[in-house]
């Protein structure tokens, strides 16, 4: 009893001491008083963040250029995003020899780098380990640090994952570099064009062909799982909607209805496929549950409803319809019902695609013989044209909803090629592919 009492008393004393210490600390702390002067800054300067990315330090790497390659991929990823301006390595003053030392910030301030990426790659029994630190040069502190291990052939993915981490820490939004693009590769002369499904990294590397080019393929789309796609193929007879696992090459027919099925797209949970089915002169929307194979009709009209796309929460669908006379964009509940028209500008609107961020819908707009790629809010306001020209089509969103990829056909004897543009419309860039390319579809982030 006494023991317990004394113990509790001791504890009390300790508590008291802590409280006193806390009080003293609070007293030492500068008292929060209102600042003398208040200032509002409502205008900024949107410009790329200058960032220094020295070569990663290679430790026991079989390929001596590995460190350099990784840093170059990161630099090119960030540069392509338009939000970063990697600084030429020739300007660097300090040479990063170890990532465990604090860099000399004065050297990096002098070349006006706002951020610095110091990294290390090492190789041991077929695996690659990479670690990096992201420094805020002007504040002189570490913003982020991480390390990864992967198989040796996956070293490019490591660079993409690091790019994503840097992008997210500095812009506040998820990155999109560790993702893939499936597209239709077009080769051969214009009259006998061979169209094959192909997949590549979002920066154009690691191109791999998925079909042999016997059948005409169109509109590939990714599932929420980044290894499954759906696409449309004209084999013998009517076009059909297929599913394919791009890792195994396994494929199956989704729908086998009388008539032609078009423009398939996955629901956000990957459990359903929505598509349009043409019978006679009209086309209606259907959704099919992939497990039960049960098909539900969503629209029943005498007009052409097509190009459906789910909102990321799966609650609504946007689609194109000519029920008002011209092709326009409509939004309705995922279960069908009344549709609300949201596009009211001049010309006709087609292929609406809901952003994975949920705030915008991308579309193709045709006015006076020109095709433009634009975005609008989901209620139809804030329409903005991002790019315009003879023929632009097929917008697809990056996983973070910041960038749109599309294909552009200049006409004449040439063929289509892929481009990316930022939602601000500021940063349009071509994407290099082995030959002509069309119908891109951006995957979700890889896991």
């Amino acid at each position, binding site marked *: 009893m006494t023991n317990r009492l004394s113990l509790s008393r001791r504890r009390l004393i300790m508590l008291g001491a802590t409280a006193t210490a806390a009080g003293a600390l609070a007293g030492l702390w500068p008292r929060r008083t209102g*600042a003398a002067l*208040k*200032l509002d800054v409502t*205008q*900024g*300067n949107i410009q790329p963040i200058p960032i220094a990315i020295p070569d990663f330090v290679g430790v026991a790497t079989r390929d001596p250029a590995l460190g350099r390659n990784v840093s170059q991929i990161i630099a090119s990823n960030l540069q392509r995003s338009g939000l970063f301006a990697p600084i030429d390595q020739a300007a660097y003053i300090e040479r990063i020899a170890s990532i465990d030392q604090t860099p000399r910030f004065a050297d990096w301030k002098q070349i006006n780098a706002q951020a610095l990426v110091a990294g290390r790659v090492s190789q041991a029994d077929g695996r690659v380990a990479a670690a990096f630190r992201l420094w*805020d040069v002007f504040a002189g502190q570490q913003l982020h640090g991480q390390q990864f291990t992967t198989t040796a052939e996956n070293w490019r993915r490591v660079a993409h994952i690091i790019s994503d981490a840097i992008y997210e820490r500095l812009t*506040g*939004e*998820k990155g999109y570099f560790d993702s893939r693009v499936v597209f239709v590769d077009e080769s051969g002369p214009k009259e006998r064009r061979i169209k094959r499904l192909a997949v590549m990294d979002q920066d154009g590397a690691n191109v791999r062909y998925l079909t042999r080019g016997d059948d005409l393929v169109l509109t590939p789309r990714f599932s929420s799982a980044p290894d499954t796609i759906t696409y449309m193929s004209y084999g013998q007879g009517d076009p059909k909607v297929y599913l394919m696992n791009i890792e195994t090459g396994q494929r199956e027919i989704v729908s086998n209805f009388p008539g032609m099925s078009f423009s398939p797209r996955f629901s956000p949970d990957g459990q359903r496929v929505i598509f349009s089915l043409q019978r006679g002169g009209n086309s209606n929307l259907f959704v099919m549950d992939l497990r039960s194979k049960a098909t539900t009709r969503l629209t029943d009209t005498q007009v052409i409803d097509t190009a459906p796309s789910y909102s990321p929460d799966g609650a609504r669908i946007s689609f194109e319809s000519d029920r008002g006379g011209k092709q326009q964009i409509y939004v309705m509940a995922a279960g069908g019902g009344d549709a609300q028209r949201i596009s009211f500008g001049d010309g006709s609107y087609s292929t609406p695609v809901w952003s994975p961020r949920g705030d915008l819908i991308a579309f193709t707009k045709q006015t006076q013989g020109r095709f433009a790629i634009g975005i609008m809010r989901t209620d139809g306001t804030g329409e903005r044209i991002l790019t315009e020209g003879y023929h632009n089509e097929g917008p697809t969103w990056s996983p973070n909803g910041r960038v749109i990829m599309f294909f552009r056909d200049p006409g004449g004897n040439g063929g289509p090629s892929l481009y990316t543009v930022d939602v601000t419309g500021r940063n349009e860039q071509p994407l290099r592919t082995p030959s002509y390319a069309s119908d891109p579809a951006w995957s979700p982030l890889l896991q």
Partner: protein
Amino acid sequence: MKVAYAISGIGHAAVLVWSVWSLAAKPLPVLPGDALPVDIVSVSDFTQMTAGNLSAPKSETPKPLVEKVAEAKPVEDVTAKIDEKKEVKAAREPPPAPEAKPAETKPVESKPEKKAEPKSDPIADALAKEETKKPEPKKAEAKPPAPKKPAPPAPKFDPNQVQALLNKQTATRVAAAGETLNSAPALGTPKGHAAQISLSELDALRQRLAQLWTPPAGAKDPQEIVVQVRILLKPDGTLAAPPMATNSGRSALFMAARDSAMRAVIRGAPYDMLRPETYEQWKDIEITFDPREMLRGY
């Protein structure tokens, strides 16, 4: 008698008539005066204008500081302490100024020991005197000390009066004298108001921050990226402490926005557009970075 009445009556009547005519009320002519310009000055303006300015620029002919009524005597440093002590003259005549004549070098070379001490330092003199008392066998080969130091009629060294050796060279200021007493220095009054920070200073500050600030563009939730940063500045416009964010958020977007605001603040220093006169007003600033208006539509 009747004549007298008549004269009196006529006289009264005449006075009455004259007064009726001459003292009659006439309209007073009012001449239009010159218009006086009047400025309406509020009480606070008046207080500020008359209070003087602690940090006013020096006027061309400042009223001299006067602490003693006497004939004016120039005062060099008004901030030095007043000392009533008279200036103390060195006890011995100052050493002869070293002449640049090459001929002078000869005697110096002939007496190398003497060369060391041409100064009239009382302490050194005293020490030297003490030395002379002690016979130094080591210095046997040197000249005998007696002929070396015959001249100094040096003051007697008293170790109890060491303080007399001290504080002889300090320059002191004498009281400022003049015709009338004036206790205030010319630059303003002790109750003066500090200068007010000007709108152009604020605009320049805002402009610099806006140039350096790169808000995260294309964000989905712009309200997440309003950041308040508090900075403490030194009088030279540099940061007295690292800037701190006074609002908080958990999202990655907020962190990125906060860092971008911090970078702008750090890169903007020193804020040399702010005048040191107004330091009291800008030593502690809270800046709200709000890109919502700018990013509308993105």
